[in-house]
């Protein structure tokens, strides 16, 4: 069914809550982006390809990176712009941001072909240089994004995860988003995921370098299909309600106001964001109302403003507990909750806390199993066992990537 407007709804597993004791509920923020108004055109893209050429990238890996970059250049058109940055411990601006005309495309490809592997990895330097180029040429209707590719650890420049994630967030608020591509086993998946989550972009794990071109293309396709931008949801949380947002979304909480920065949505994209709510006992109230406002820009940079609400009504404990729960909401929530715990467990496993990692994952599996298909339960059970034994590096990375995709509701 063709959806010409952004859809925005709030759902829950059960709208009745107990008067006398705190109730735990799930809040689902369901978004669906509209289809594109015009086919065969895309918003002007303003990209920077930030490519790792540190020593470890030599040989086959670098060849695939070059191929991927060339591939993206072939997909871009004259109304798009691209900048090329290569980095090791030095930053090379292979090309400032230029329109992708036929002539420029030839020169850009020539620059790419000359890429050679070098020294250590100043990831932050390369990334910021790319963002700078984008910022210098941003237009009011361009979609601005840095595509950061690396195969190793940031070991020069800014290396702290929290700091880099913070900068990614600040830049995304100022109109420059970031997607990250991690190749092989040597990069820090938690760093790249954090930069992508806070940067309003996507994270990709590239196990085999031959997949690089395909994943660059996937990113391009998403960008080309964006129909809603700067999607922001402001949720007013009633007093004494405790809310926890799952999925790693960029957000801000000021008193009873929770703002979630969703970023860009492409045509017909579904995004579901889950909150765990702990509702207080009724203090003379009959109901708790949750109001949410969504703001975004559409394809023509016109502003979209939507409102949604959901009401929870107080009832006796027995009525609230025996009322039927929405299985579809709980099933979708369970998948995200489990993936979120898996990410935490993977961090613990990486730190050497294998038993603890396996334990928290098993607890989450047990809690969510009633709402998940058996295959999912088995998959994560097996993961928990592998955590207890200690995981191989490629297992850590592919498990992390699987959990990331499941948290964000992406298809693999």
């Amino acid at each position, binding site marked *: 069914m063709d959806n010409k407007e952004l859809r925005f709804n709030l759902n829950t597993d059960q709208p009745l809550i107990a008067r006398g004791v705190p109730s735990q509920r799930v809040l689902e923020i369901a978004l669906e982006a509209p289809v594109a108004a015009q086919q065969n055109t895309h918003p002007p893209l303003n990209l920077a390809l930030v490519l790792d050429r540190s020593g470890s990238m030599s040989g086959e890996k670098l060849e695939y990176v070059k191929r991927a970059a060339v591939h993206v250049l072939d997909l871009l058109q004259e109304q798009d712009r691209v900048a090329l940055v290569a980095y090791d411990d030095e930053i090379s601006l292979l090309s400032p941001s230029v329109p992708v005309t036929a002539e420029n495309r030839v020169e850009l490809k020539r620059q790419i072909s000359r890429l050679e592997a070098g020294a250590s990895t100043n990831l932050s330097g390369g990334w910021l240089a790319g963002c700078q180029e984008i910022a210098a040429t941003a237009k009011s209707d361009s979609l601005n994004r840095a595509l950061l590719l690396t195969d190793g650890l940031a070991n020069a420049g800014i290396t702290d995860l929290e700091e880099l994630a913070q900068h990614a967030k600040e830049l995304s608020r*100022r109109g420059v988003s970031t997607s990250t591509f991690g190749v092989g086993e040597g990069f820090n998946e938690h760093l790249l995921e954090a930069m992508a989550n806070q940067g309003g972009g996507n994270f990709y794990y590239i196990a085999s370098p031959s997949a690089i071109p395909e994943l660059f293309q996937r990113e391009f396709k998403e960008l080309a299909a964006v129909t809603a931008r700067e999607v922001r949801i402001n949720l007013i949380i009633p007093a004494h309600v405790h809310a926890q947002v799952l999925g790693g979304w960029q957000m801000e909480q000021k008193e009873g106001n929770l703002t979630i920065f969703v970023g860009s949505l492409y045509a017909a994209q579904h995004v579901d964001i889950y909150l765990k709510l702990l509702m207080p006992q009724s203090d003379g109230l009959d109901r708790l109302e949750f109001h949410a406002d969504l703001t975004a820009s559409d394809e023509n940079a016109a502003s979209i403003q*939507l409102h949604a609400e959901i009401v929870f009504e107080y009832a006796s404990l027995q009525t609230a507990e025996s009322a039927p729960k929405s299985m579809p909401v709980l099933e979708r929530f369970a998948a995200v909750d489990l993936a979120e715990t898996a990410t935490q467990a993977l961090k613990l496993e990486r*730190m050497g806390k294998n038993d603890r990692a396996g334990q928290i994952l098993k607890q989450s599996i047990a809690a969510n199993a009633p709402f998940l298909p058996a295959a999912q339960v088995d998959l994560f059970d097996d993961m928990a066992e592998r955590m207890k034994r200690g995981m191989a590096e490629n297992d850590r990375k592919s498990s992390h990537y699987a959990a990331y995709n499941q948290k964000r509701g992406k298809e693999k």
Partner: protein
Amino acid sequence: MMTEKYLIHELAEIAQTTVRTIRYYTDEGLLPQPEIHGKYAYYTSEHLRRLELIRQMKEAYLPLREIRQKLLNMNETEINQWQQTYASPRQVAEKTDEGIKISTEPGASAKAYIARLMGNQEGKAAAPSVPITTPAVSVPNAAKELPIQSPPPSYSIVENWQRIDLAPGVELHVQEPLDAEKDSRIRQLLRYAQKIFSSNI
């Protein structure tokens, strides 16, 4: 223009919002009541302007409560001033050394942010991470020692939390890395916890 009148669905279409939203804002006092003529409610360009202003204030992260306050209390001049300083990401106010600068270039804000960052980077030496050297605290009844810190992992991870068992089913969560002062307080806390959980109530 000032005498333009809109029905609610027309206003919704022009302002790129929904009838539901307009009714909600009216209920919340963010929009004035429409004029009723017979069975129709008419909205004016003033409503349109307000809707735009509300959008701008939301983009500046103001909660609805504050927006309502501002709309009630600010006059025309004050509203214009507010818009000059804070309105829309396209027209961003950046705090610079010369005071608040307003730029109309789309990428200006990001550019300013990166420039500041790179300026800071040049003057900054890498801050050394604080190594935790505290010895383990042992609980008499427990078979094992309580390690406060294992050697730092090879790279940093968001939210590095250490779980320390105080007793069966009771944990203390400590965010790493710890500075020396916090570390010493935590050791005090652990000694105290040890007393509580090993004493008879």
